[in-house]
């Protein structure tokens, strides 16, 4: 098999597109961890719920863009309820408890989707406007995946603008630094955490509805994704948005390139990457040292 430059380039683009989904997922996970120090083991489940809800709205309205806007709102709302009633009672008990709770929650969410939509899942297809492949010069690439890269960029930039340029974003960042001082300053930190958890889940749901056209939508689709999200979040640095994006792309590219030369080792390679990063630089590429002890 000859490796031509155009094959390498196409593989790179594939890696970036793959990385876009990873990045989006990691952003949600990292946001929740960075601001609340909660490890959301239900993140994959929220991704899966997003895919189902997205298809449901698509079936109702026939419009992909509608479902793209509505789904994160719905999944975010579920996230809000989760934080308020399930996670909040566990603050102060140590980091393990919210982790364990969200683990149990993931099982419940999976079963809920089975009850609502059946065990086989739902058929999904690419929206007509984005169907087909584009000749990039180096090969054919699905239009939809280019759209994914674009959508991820939009979401990440929007999030960044929110965190860096708005007043509420400032409060969120301050809250992650020191919740007590914020309280002293009169800010309802509990409300901030609620909102952040909701946003994190909403992003997970959005990833789901975006990923749905590319893969089979079934209740088990989130399990696989969770492990990959953790890899990316850890590599980038838990709590760092920049880290989530960079690591997402990095992991996507590593996976794609390994698939070209040694496809059986592709999945193993990302866990090796995770282990190496953790051992050399536990806080990840962009994480703050000593964030978690």
């Amino acid at each position, binding site marked *: 098999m000859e490796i031509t430059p155009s094959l390498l380039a196409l593989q790179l683009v594939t890696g970036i597109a793959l990385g876009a989904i990873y990045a989006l997922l990691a952003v949600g996970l990292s946001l929740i961890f960075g601001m609340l120090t909660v490890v959301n083991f239900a993140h994959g489940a929220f991704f899966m719920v997003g895919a189902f809800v997205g298809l449901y709205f698509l079936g109702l309205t026939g419009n992909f863009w509608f479902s793209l806007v509505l789904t994160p709102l719905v999944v975010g709302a579920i996230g809000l309820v989760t934080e308020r009633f399930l996670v909040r009672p566990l603050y102060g008990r140590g980091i393990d408890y919210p982790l364990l709770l969200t683990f149990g929650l993931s099982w419940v969410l999976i079963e809920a989707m089975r009850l609502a939509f059946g065990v086989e899942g739902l058929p999904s297809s690419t929206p007509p406007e984005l169907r087909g*492949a584009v000749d990039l010069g180096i090969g054919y690439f699905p239009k939809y995946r280019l759209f994914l890269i674009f959508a991820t960029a939009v979401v990440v930039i929007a999030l960044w603008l929110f965190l860096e340029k708005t007043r509420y974003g400032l409060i969120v960042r301050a809250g992650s630094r020191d919740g007590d001082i914020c309280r002293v300053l009169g800010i309802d930190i509990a409300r901030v955490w609620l909102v952040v958890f909701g946003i994190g889940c909403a992003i997970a749901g959005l990833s789901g509805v975006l990923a749905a056209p590319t893969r089979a939508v*079934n209740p088990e*689709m989130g399990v*696989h994704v969770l492990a990959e999200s953790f890899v990316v979040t850890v590599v980038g640095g838990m709590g760092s948005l920049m880290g989530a994006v960079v690591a997402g792309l990095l992991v996507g590219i590593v996976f794609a390139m390994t*698939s*070209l030369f040694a496809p059986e080792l592709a999945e193993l390679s990302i866990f090796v990457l995770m282990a190496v990063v953790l051992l050399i630089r536990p806080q990840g590429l962009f994480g703050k040292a000593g964030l978690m002890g």
Partner: protein
Amino acid sequence: MSHLPQSKSRRQLIVGGAAVAAAPALFSIARAQPAAIKIGFPVPLTGPFSAEAQDQVRAAELAVKEWNAAGGHKGQKCELLVRDTKLNSGEAATRTLELIEKDKVNFVVGSLSAATQLSINAVTRERKVLFNSISQSDTINEAKDWSLYTFHEALNPHLTAGAVARYAFPKFGKRIAYLTADYAYGHEMVRGFQRAGQAMGAQTVADIRHPLGAADYSAFLPRIQALKPDVLVLCNFGRDLVNSAKQATDFGLKQGTKIIAPVLLYTSRVAGGPDAFEGILGGTSYYWGMEDKIPSAKKFNDAFRKAYGGAVPSDYGALGYAGILSVLQAVKNADATDSQRVAIALRQLKYDWYKGPQFYRKCDHQSVQSVVIVESKSKNMKDKNDVFNVLAIEDANEKNLRSCEEMGHKVS
């Protein structure tokens, strides 16, 4: 429903907490002679193959009902004990132990997935209980895993892949690329294709192994695109097939390349939808649409439709039906209910339950049967069940299997 276990009330007591006092009295350790012929049926009722497994249960229950209605064996009726393996080999082994030790089943029929059937087999053969496997595996018939009590009703990868290769390669070209799930099933399918292809001068341009359960195949597709093969074989199963078919379509691989799959599951096709599977052909053990050619298929379909409100049986469902009926017929022929004598009768059985004549090969108890080549349909579908066109049926032929010697059996 008949498949709930007898111990349900006992377990509820334990949950209630009153068990401590009551249990020793209730729990009988004595080995009682069973009045009914009990067949254990461990299948993955929950998990990714839950739809297929539930169809297996339906078809198996139909088989039991038919047999009982016809009088059973000298008045002895059959009882089906369905258990959930959760698609987990450890759980399957535990369930099988429960079925044998506690429920005292006479025989075991099941499962779905190569790994679980092998682990069930490991338990049954040690205890000399007859096991008729109803899911694909090349390994279960090999001497290492096999025993006199091991039977294999389902197709195996070698036979299936060979049949599809013999049909497709002459028609579509010699340059073959494989996208293979990296586990035994995938490897076995590739081997089957390559063996059959050798005779036709087929050339393997790539064999790309992807991790089992991968959701995203985009990393593997550019390379295949660059190679421009005549045929792309998706050597994976179930949801993996749905995902890879979808994404191969997205990447425009269907232009210039024929996509084939060794096993085209009815449920996968329904889940994946017409677009993803458009133009894809593959093999299967059974498709209900065969009924206009095969009389026993029509008989089976009609019985299934009558029992289940017009629904048609799937490929794996039909295997559940046949697996049970073969064992029960062997009970009649042997005029016995112990595994040893029934096994001897079973290996001599010739039958036609739903797809034409079948029999078990002597050396390894593999059911010699036909392979159906189907192609996905997206236009002119008469109803939601009409998803395949039957392109060809390769007749049952022992020569298409691997030889007994190759499987490690000494030929007597």
